[in-house]
């Protein structure tokens, strides 16, 4: 393996158009089912700190490609912190750092010389509050990621990518006649789908979602959940949720985080197939949490 940072950038530069969905993984193993094989994430002994505060301790887990992995647990248990450490958003907080490894298909995203900007190109993120850029039109919001780093894309090609991303986010029919209007004029659920279109337009390998439905009404929530089920065909998805029904409905794997006492670091209690977690969890703490006895 050569220098990870260079590889990350190269992969990113070449993976733009979707019509040729043949990543190297797909060509080498054409027998495997999905057309777009996304990447897996492997966290190894990950400790996360905010300055002197030890927020998450010793997390090791495998996040499988083209699956939805839900992170559940009570508030303050470190699941959002863990999520943000997966694309190095967490280190934007002053004094925050990690110890351990996070590997994207075997490549450590925290290796020395790895550019966090390149990591975030590959691992996109959707936030709790829908956050379209208020000064940009719907079109420009979706195109924003593609225009970064002075990448020159011709208008027709950009039109195509924007339309595909909006269709992929189930938003196209609602906004196709007002692409030049500001994104802030949409409803909350539409804004969140716009943010999903924006994140997926750059064709990342992994999509991180930090409680994407917690600011939405139930109908918009259902729309996002059905969208997630479709998006996993193309992306690996990690979703933090407070809503256990949502975890049960929308995810393939579920990871349960917990803290023993307040002030202690959060730990991963267990991760397993969602069905198993919700029927026969290995740990009594998990059972207590999912049956609503605390949290």
């Amino acid at each position: 393996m050569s220098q990870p940072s260079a590889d990350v950038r190269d992969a990113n530069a070449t993976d733009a158009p979707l019509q040729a969905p043949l990543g190297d993984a797909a060509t080498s193993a054409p027998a495997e089912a999905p057309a777009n094989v996304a990447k897996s994430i492997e966290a190894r002994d990950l400790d996360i700190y905010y300055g002197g505060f030890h927020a998450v301790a010793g997390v090791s887990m495998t996040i499988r490609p083209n699956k939805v992995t839900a992170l559940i647990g009570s508030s303050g248990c470190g699941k959002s912190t863990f999520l943000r450490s997966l694309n190095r958003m967490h280190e934007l907080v002053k004094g925050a750092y990690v110890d351990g490894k996070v590997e994207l298909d075997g490549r450590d995203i925290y290796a020395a010389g790895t550019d966090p900007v390149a990591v975030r190109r590959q691992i996109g993120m959707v936030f709790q509050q829908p956050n379209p850029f208020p000064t940009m039109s719907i079109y420009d919001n979706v195109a924003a990621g593609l225009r970064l780093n002075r990448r020159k894309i011709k208008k027709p090609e950009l039109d195509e990518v924007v339309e595909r991303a909006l269709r992929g986010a189930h938003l196209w029919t609602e906004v196709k006649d007002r692409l030049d209007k500001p994104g802030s004029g949409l409803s909350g659920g539409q804004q969140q789908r716009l943010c999903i279109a924006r994140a997926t337009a750059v064709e990342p390998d992994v999509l991180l979602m930090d409680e994407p439905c917690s600011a939405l009404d139930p109908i918009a929530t259902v729309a996002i959940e059905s969208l997630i089920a479709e998006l996993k065909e193309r992306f690996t998805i990690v979703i933090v949720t407070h809503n256990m029904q949502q975890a049960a409905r929308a995810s393939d794997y579920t990871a349960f985080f917990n803290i023993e006492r307040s002030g202690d670091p959060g730990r991963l209690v267990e991760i397993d197939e969602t069905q198993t977690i919700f029927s026969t969890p290995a740990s009594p703490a998990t059972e207590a949490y999912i049956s609503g006895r605390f949290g």
Partner: protein
Amino acid sequence: MELAPERAARKPEALASGVPQRLGDRVFSGVAKGAGIGILVVLAGVAIFLLIEAWPAITAPAERIPGGEGLVDYIAPLAFGTVLAAVLAAIIAVPFAVAIALFVSHYAPRRIAAGLGYVIDLLAAVPSVVYGLWGVSVLAPASRDINAWLADHVGFLPFFEGPASVTGRTMLVAGLVLAVMILPIITAIAREVFAQTPRAHEEAALALGATRWEMVRMAVLPFGRSAVISGSMLGLGRALGETMAVTIILSVSGIVTFNLISSSNPSTIAANIALDFPESSGIAINALIASGLVLFAITLAVNMAARAVINRREKKEGR
């Protein structure tokens, strides 16, 4: 649960019916209303004073106005000089102010940022007469070589046509000093608003794989744009009315020229009033006040233009 941040636009009457008027509310609303009306009265008073005092000069025959060419010919070069100096100052100051504000709000380590912000604010506390003296005794002599170089090398531009002033008391130096004077106000306003950029927008940009500068361009600058505009206009307003620094620095000859580096420059309205008022009498004073009325109108127009620009942007963004 926070849904979309829609402000409740309920009419106060709907709540007020049956609720007793509280004393504190009444006092506060009275004080606020009084202050609002008071400032309008003062403004109207100034406008009326200017109009009444300027009227004799407006109606006087042309040959009685200083210069003997009529009021318009008397004020026009002054108004031109005023706008030229102020626009020059704004052109120099705004990029610096935006850059400093960005550095303080998004680039500098916290400790340096706080210190730097304080120092910039301190610039506003220096009296303008001190800036004038600094300009004429330090900046003007230092600018002579630069003026000569500009005249030699970019003399084809009307701004640097030359002949270069030997004293350095030029429009360029006046503009530079004015720029330093308006820097703090533009910086302070821009800095405050840049620092308030919603974290959500910054993170949205970064999560897309934006570099820090791309994040600034996508999230911070659009958010702060109307603040930069209004800050610039406030700075422009201050530069338009600035008196002492320009009076001290500029060597004036009452001509209309874009040449920034020669020794003959248009004066500004405020500097002209300060220079001529002590030696004027009769209709000449009325002419000076008429020029003051023009300055008043220009400043008012600048501020209203700024308001209009900001309002239009806000409407467009659906805020």
